[in-house]
């Protein structure tokens, strides 16, 4: 009898961990991500709402400066300059992810807390819009958890961007633009 109870608890915990995304969120509308400002790119950092490591934050840093902290089931949008960027997360071990930010495009990165010796270790990895939607992550990081590094959009800035900048992004199926001007033509061969 005692053994049965023990296995029931184990099975319950296993089930709770394996069904990682919040079930309620799967029926909700997908989170609206605003288009980045013209000429800028953006990355949506998110963390699924699993039980494991829920008490830990996943602080995303660039060049040693904290951009924002991700709690379980939270996301934030980082607007930044196009080019290669390196982001780090750290607890008892450090993990780094480099991404190529493209102008007028949105990319996704996911943080998970994995097993560690004394504490969970955050792991940052590339992701996709489909994975973000599937994860059911729908809560924006609170404004006081953002910064001091620049770029993370505060909740009011997200609302503003959603209301005013809709359609600013260049979608993949958009008509071909004949910009920028001639001054930016291909560089001569080396």
């Amino acid at each position, binding site marked *: 009898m005692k053994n049965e109870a023990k296995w029931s608890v184990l099975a319950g915990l296993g089930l709770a*961990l394996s069904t990682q995304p919040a079930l309620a969120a799967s029926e909700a509308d997908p989170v609206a991500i605003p288009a980045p400002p013209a000429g800028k790119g953006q990355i949506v950092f998110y963390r699924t709402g699993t*039980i*494991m490591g829920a008490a830990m934050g996943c602080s995303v840093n660039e060049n040693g400066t904290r951009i924002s902290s991700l709690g379980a089931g939270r996301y934030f949008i980082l607007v930044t300059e196009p080019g290669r960027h390196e982001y780090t997360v750290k607890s008892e071990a450090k993990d780094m992810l480099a991404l*190529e930010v493209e102008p007028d495009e949105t990319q996704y990165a996911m943080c998970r807390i994995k097993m560690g010796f004394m504490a969970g270790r955050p792991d940052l990895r*590339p992701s996709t819009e489909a994975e973000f939607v599937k994860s059911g992550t729908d809560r924006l990081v609170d404004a006081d958890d953002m910064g001091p590094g620049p770029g993370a959009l505060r909740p009011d800035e997200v609302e503003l961007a959603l209301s005013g900048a809709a359609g600013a992004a260049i979608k993949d199926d958009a008509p071909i633009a004949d*910009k920028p001007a001639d001054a930016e033509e291909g560089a001569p061969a080396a």
Partner: protein
Amino acid sequence: MRKDVLVCLGVGVLAPLPCLAEEALPVPPSAPAASGCQHAIPALTPIVIETLIDLGSAVSQSLDTFPIRLAEPIVVDGREVLPAGSAGEGEVVHAKKAGGSGTPGELVLAARWLEACGTRLRLRSMHVALAGQGAVGTVNAINAGAALAPVPIGLVGFAIRGRNVLYPAGTRATAKIAVRFKPPAPVPETEDLLPTSNPDAAVYEG
């Protein structure tokens, strides 16, 4: 053979046409070749490229470069403006091997440029950011179970590795032309008349 020559001479008398073999006839100038780089390529034109070497989270290093090739011709307004085959280069933006605790391998690639028409056409938007199949969830489930187990089976999680990402040679991906390509202006015909081999003529100012 002799009969052919006689017929040829006869026809030559009657008509002012040279009687020569067909191979010697001047070939009319053909239409401009599609590969002539004579047409502009708008920015954000989608292209299909393929990688020419094996890439992967376990075999590549961040900031490595790798050769690419234009896999399909670039077509603008129904006209082929650049044939397939142009060589170029891409860069491994990020590569990380799979690790313990179920951590998957990661690979982020970017297309940099294509060599064509004497210039390097800058590329963007390759959109290859991959993570292998991870086992972090499995490891976490084992750990949760281990909390109630009499033996420290949770340590097994450190030995469970995620899977690496492999991006084999020949894999195709889409990218875009980053900036508008404008074909070089044609050389004026008058420039062809300038003497190029006579040094005296080159300095003549009279």
